[in-house]
């Protein structure tokens, strides 16, 4: 049985608990009633001065109050936590259309991205990846490729010649790597060589004096035109992720015999009727890469027995492929180092 005073304390405390609308208010109730100097605390403090017969009752009352009030506070605290969770889970003010906070990002050049993709495709088929110098010897860029001095084919390559050494030039194609490969690798082998090449052409939206190519070379016993067609189809299937019709037509490059131009059916207007679009200049074919069977003189220059071994070679227009892949309409962007371009990749 509580005394009327104790009951008053209890009622006041419970009212305070009920009225506490947040954790701070509840803590204040806790202090006011259960703290050292709080109402219950004072009862406990009064015990030592009370007559002995009342001490027990006072002690019981204080404990009872502690329990009742403490329990109420705990209960209220739980309720407040639950309310807080509900509040936290509210979706007020949520706007999914607010853009995410900006993120500084980096990028790989589109030429790097496409080169890597092609390297992945070819190395999965056992092709080694080779590199060659951009400043080349005439011997490798022309002579060993069966384009001797005064050969009219030299005019097809608008060559940048170096000052001071008539044998030095900026390579006009990645084909000199063929010779370097023949000199160092033992047939049979398969290799590709991506890299930059140079031709002294007037620069405009579709011409750059610096561009990227990827040379391919496969040498072995019994390598045929059929293998060349197979290799090209496989690679195109991987790049465009579907079967594309190709055609080989005669093309003249002194380092191959027979030599071809490889055209691929334009993938950009495949679903259109009638076919033809701006990418293929309405012809439905895209000229993709010169290729052919390695000329026996080239094999011989590279120290390979041209009777025992045959081979095929191709020169993919990497810059062109990059432009096709991303729909880039101006080749100058590739070497432009403009962040507004680079950031898009």
């Amino acid at each position, binding site marked *: 049985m509580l005394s009327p005073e104790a009951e008053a304390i209890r009622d006041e405390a419970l009212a305070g608990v009920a009225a506490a609308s947040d954790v701070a208010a509840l803590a204040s109730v806790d202090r006011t009633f259960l703290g050292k100097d709080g109402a219950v605390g004072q009862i406990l403090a009064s015990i030592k001065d009370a007559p002995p017969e009342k001490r027990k009752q006072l002690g019981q009352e204080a404990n009872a109050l502690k329990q009742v009030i403490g329990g109420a506070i705990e209960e209220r605290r739980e309720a407040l936590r639950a309310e807080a969770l509900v509040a936290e889970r509210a979706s007020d003010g949520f706007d999914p259309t607010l853009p995410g906070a900006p993120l500084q990002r980096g990028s790989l050049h589109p030429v790097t991205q496409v080169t890597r993709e092609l390297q992945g495709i070819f190395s999965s088929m*056992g092709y080694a990846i080779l590199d060659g110098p951009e400043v080349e010897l005439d011997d490798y860029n022309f002579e060993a490729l069966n384009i001797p001095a005064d050969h*009219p084919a030299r005019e097809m390559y608008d060559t*940048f010649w170096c000052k001071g050494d008539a044998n030095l030039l900026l390579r006009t194609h990645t084909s000199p790597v063929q010779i370097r490969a023949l000199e160092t690798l033992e047939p049979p082998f398969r290799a590709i060589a991506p890299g930059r090449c140079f031709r002294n052409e007037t620069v405009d939206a579709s011409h750059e004096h610096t561009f990227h190519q990827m040379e391919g070379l496969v040498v072995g016993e019994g390598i045929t035109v059929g293998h060349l*067609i197979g290799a090209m189809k496989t690679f195109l299937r991987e790049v465009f992720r579907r079967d594309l019709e190709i055609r080989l037509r*005669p093309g003249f490059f002194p380092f191959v*015999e*027979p030599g071809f131009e490889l055209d691929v059916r334009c993938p950009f207007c495949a679903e259109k009727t009638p076919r033809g679009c701006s990418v293929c200049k309405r012809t439905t074919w895209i000229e993709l890469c010169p290729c052919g069977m390695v000329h026996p003189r080239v094999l011989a220059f590279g120290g390979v027995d041209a009777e025992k071994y045959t081979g095929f070679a191709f020169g993919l227009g990497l810059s062109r492929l990059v432009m096709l892949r991303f729909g880039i309409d101006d080749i100058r962007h590739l070497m432009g180092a403009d962040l507004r371009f680079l950031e898009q990749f």
Partner: protein
Amino acid sequence: MFLSYRWLQRHVDLTGVSAQEIAEDLTIHTAEVEGVEPFAPALSDVVVGHVVDRKPHPDADRLSVCTVDVGDDTPLNIVCGAPNVDAGQKVAVGRVGTVLPGNLKLKKAKIRGVESRGMICSERELELGDEHSGIWVLPDDAQVGVPVAQALGIDDWIIEIENKSLTHRPDLWGHRGIATEIAAIRGLELLPLDLTLPETAGGEPYPVRVESPGCPRYLGLPISGVRVERSPLWLRLLLIAAGQRPLDLLVDLSNFVMLDLGQPNHLFDAGRLSSEGILVRNARAGETMTTLDDVERTFTQNDMLIVSGDEPVAVAGVMGGEASKVAEGTTDLLLEVAAFDATTVRRTAQRLGLRTDASTRFEKTLDPTLPAKAAAHLVHTLRAIQPDVTLPRAMGDAGTWTDPACDVELRPERVRIVLGADVPDDEIERILTSLGFGVVRSASPWSVRVPSDRAAKDVGIEEDLIEEVGRMFGYGNIAERPLEGPLVPAPRDERRELVELLQNRLAGAARFHEALTHTFQFDALLQRLGAFDEAYLEVLNPQIDGCARIRRSILPSLLGVLEGNRRHSDDVRLFEIGKGYRPEDANERGEPREVHQLAIVWALPRPGKNARFDAGVMSRLQSVVDDLIRVARRSASGWRALDATDVPSWAHPGRSMANEFATVGVLDPGVKRELGLDGDLECDVAFAELSLDALLAADEAPHAYHPIPRFPSVKVDVAFSVPEAFAAGDAIAVVEAAGKGLVHSTEMFDLYRGDSVGAGKKSLALHVRLLASDRTLSDEDVARFVGRVERGIERAGGELRSE
């Protein structure tokens, strides 16, 4: 080169074969076709009209009012200004609505008060030549109301062939050669052509001498009794279709033979030549002659001239001379048909900047048996037009030429091996024979006779014959085959692997953008960067003046693009991996040393006053480079400051450092201004250059795993006040020494200069994490450590500020 479809039909019957089909055939089997266009499309709209009546215009002396029947119910009233228009003529009439060349759409008009419903056209108005002194009068039998093209049987197509794809085919530079291909492709008969020279008058042949080694054969044939007149319509139309402007019969015939057989030739007015005849010799240095285009040319000893009485009369294989040209009144000709050396002609044409139809053909190395055939063809064609022409003297024929026709061995099984297709022996034989090769079948190898026009240039070995078979068999008929062979890993390329590692780290974690820049560097840029005086390889023929240098280092190129990028971006982070060339360090073959580099630039606005001491762009780039070296699994010794002798010219002389792999620094303030990075574009710029060569040359550092600690670590902060010259690295060394193996990591968190530290001094503060592998560290351990730090730093000339 332009081909006329109708012209081709002079050599092969193309009934039922369209120009588009021919183009497709040539594309697949022979050469690249640029396009197929209708010839003079206006001729399909313009119709044949009959001038029924002509009256003078009532109000204009020079105009006529014509009544022209164009096959409709009512004749048209047309006002015409041509002096030669007359009643009874058949004329070419453009009606109201017809579109003439130049996109001129005819409308109903009133001319000086008289209504005109159309136009009677001149040849020039139809783009059929320069003739515009009067209207084009058509043959009397032309059928009224029918389009002119149809009525005259002159509708034609122009097929354009890409010249580059004929580089190796001298035989395809005329219509006959292309027709031979078409006949072979389609299995048609080539129509006969009389190429034997008619009999000439007897006696001494025309005197021709060849002194120059660049002329294997020279034919001189005198022709008499010619008249300079206009060419017949058929000839003019064919020439126009093939892209030539008709002039007069003789010039036109010369061009006709060239475009028909691919053999250039020249006609001199014999009356203007010396009676001594012709000499082919090299020019004397400084010798001059005015060419047909009315330009005086000066020659060198490498140029080959045609000389008469010691006067130059033509540049061999390039162009004739003005003084000896055929002109009005010419009656006697000397026809020159020759074989000239390709290189000699090409060099002269190139040097003179005079690429002509003739030189283009000679550059391909022409068949030396062709001149005699071409001479005959010209005479026959001329006689068909002017039957009374005579050949008053035997033809002069000089030179040391030999017939290039040769025999090449061909193994039919080799054809099948290289092509990867089962082409039967009979098919191989059929193809080669259709192309004019002579095949002697026997046990392998066969002997194949290569005709002179193919042997002159492109067919000399077995593979050449295989190509002939392959292209005619059709590459589309060869089945694809997968590569086969043992599965062995391809050799690894460590440099490429390193490049990919660095690219990934920079574009990923470090968030830089990969750029590609040109190999050429502008002189102006190098001057701004103070890097102009180094040794550069240069190209002889730069595209832009002042941009001939080939880069030694990548970095200047990236510095050059900073300003443009800074205009659009506050935070510019670029990198490029590429090659530089060092000519001073060439090998015995003359190849300059190739260096492989990574260049990085980073431009940022200057950090605010209250930013952390390491918020600066250089400090951040240094961390990027440290990380790259770590990712490359190499270990670098500490950074050392670069002094004036080894600091790059563009770098701040007191804010640049290096280790064995890399250089990191900030841009020199003067250079920064030179690059335009001031004013609105003001920023801090840090750069780094890593040598891939050095990274690859260094051993890989072992990547050791450290066990996760079993005992907790203790964090202690220490701050020192040290003299300004005291390096942070030395402070860290003191701390590590004091730790006696317990220092797990240190991190600098403050660098402060100010009143509370005192002049000439700075304060450095570090978080130090202590860790023992065998126990939990006690307060005593920490106190002993701090005590040792204090003594250590005092010995080094500083003092501990707090712990």
